[in-house]
């Protein structure tokens, strides 16, 4: 279990597409280090032979009929888009330069 430094915070922030100022990066390194240290107590727990749980009520493979139903109105959905044109969402160019 590694300690978290600013380089590590920058690596994670890049993975999460999250901009951080230099001050935030330094602050997060300290706080994340403490939080990770706290959760690392689980390393000492004996979990030999214990299966992981990701669904608590025991539901598996909930199916529905594959039928066409009315979907939401395009204009209503686009109304929240920061920029739109001709019924499409406008984004900045994908590659810089």
């Amino acid at each position, binding site marked *: 279990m590694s300690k978290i430094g600013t380089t590590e915070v920058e690596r994670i922030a890049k993975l999460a597409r999250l901009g951080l100022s230099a001050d935030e990066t330094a602050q997060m390194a300290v706080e994340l280090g403490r939080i990770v240290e706290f*959760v690392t107590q689980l390393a000492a727990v004996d979990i030999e032979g214990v299966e992981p*749980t990701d669904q*608590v009520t025991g539901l598996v493979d909930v199916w529905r009929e594959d039928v066409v139903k009315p979907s939401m109105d395009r204009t209503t959905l686009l109304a929240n888009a920061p920029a739109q044109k001709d019924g499409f969402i406008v984004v900045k*160019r994908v590659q810089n330069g």
Partner: protein
Amino acid sequence: MVDLRRPIAELAAQVASGKLTAVDLVQSALARIEETTSYHAILELNPEALARAEAIDGLIKAGESVGPLAGIPFIAKDNYLTFATHTTAASNILAPFKAPYQSVAIDRLEAAGAILVAKANLDAFAHGTSTENSDFGPTKNPVDPTRVPGGSSGGSAASVALGQAVFAVGSDTGGSIRQPAAFCGVVGLKPTYGLIPRTGVVAMASSADVLGPITNCAADATIVLDVMAGPDASDATTIERDKQGYLDATGSLTGLKFGLIKEYLGAGLNIEIKRHILELVEQLKSRGAEVHEVSVPAVELALAAYYILVPAEVSSNLARYDGVKYGHSSTKARDLDETYRLSREEGFGAEAKRRILIGTYVLSSGYYDAYYKRAQRVRTKLIEEFNQAFTQFDILIGSTTPGPAFPLGSKSNDPLALYLEDVMTVAVNLTGVPAISLPLGTVDGLPVGVQLIAPQRAERSLMATAVTVEAVIGDWRTRA
């Protein structure tokens, strides 16, 4: 002006019989909200509330049948999508957002005749235990405005305690209904995972998120639960409601087996709250209940597991806020990657950023097994221990919180200290079982709560027990 801190059944009967009108109740709610704005429980009023009240009064006058909540004003946490207002999750990144569809839970409440009067403040994206993480400023505790109302449903709990509506609805991923209910002296119900459809509520951690009511009494929580519960095709995690419904369940304390969770009485618990809990235990025994201590050792690990699993799911659920489809979009971005990074940097508050980073870290290559997978296995241990305890006991009991409401600002520079506030509530979310917090008494004049925990899908017995335990407690304000 009508005091809205009265039982739902009583108010609804008066509206149905014409003794009171829905307009009377909604006007009372709006007036009370206006009178108590300084608590900052509310983010936005529903401009259509009065018109809806008039429509309901019209139906009643015409002799049409109306639902069990006809004319009852309620407040929704601002992570429920609602047509008439913005839905911000108290975050800057969603500040401009107007929902294109409405949450199933709100649809059900409105179909039952309830009237949404306002949206309540919360910790942004429901991340927090004090409502201080709201990007729009904290809510103040109704009992002592220098203190926090708890969180994340702090605005909802405060609004009920202030009488701004008859009930409120919140969400609970790690204690976010029960803890603020305890801090504000109201009732907070966290149902079994999947009992209330979450479609149209801003997702936090999908394997743990549930919705539920915050009310003045346990009977009110049962009525609201009965309206909200049951499967919906739009949420594949939903489960069937109890075939008998929830309304007519009655319980007796005679022979009922309570397990007093030993670990929740430990060193972290405020000594005065412990005294209140033990006094209640004696009262329950004297009325024929059996109460024994039970050890659930894994609850001591629940918080660490929670702060791996939940940030992991948070980082995934918050990935959708990209500055492209809706919400805040940076005007400084020069390309698409900058749209993502800058919109998220500008739009997310410190706690959302912290959780995105922790979650991304524990899910990243090389750490996944050591953190996420291991926490999921600890979760299994916890479930097995709860199952074991429920072979011996009908209801588990403990304090809702380690202490009473703390002063505003006293922990806001210490994220870990705020996380520790959830130490007695998170196990319920990780195991999916239902739990309710009831006001138990006061410590230095501040409300504290007792938590009752039942097996999955045992809401009928939980609610019946809650009503009887509430009667045993009597007026909590006089229990110092």
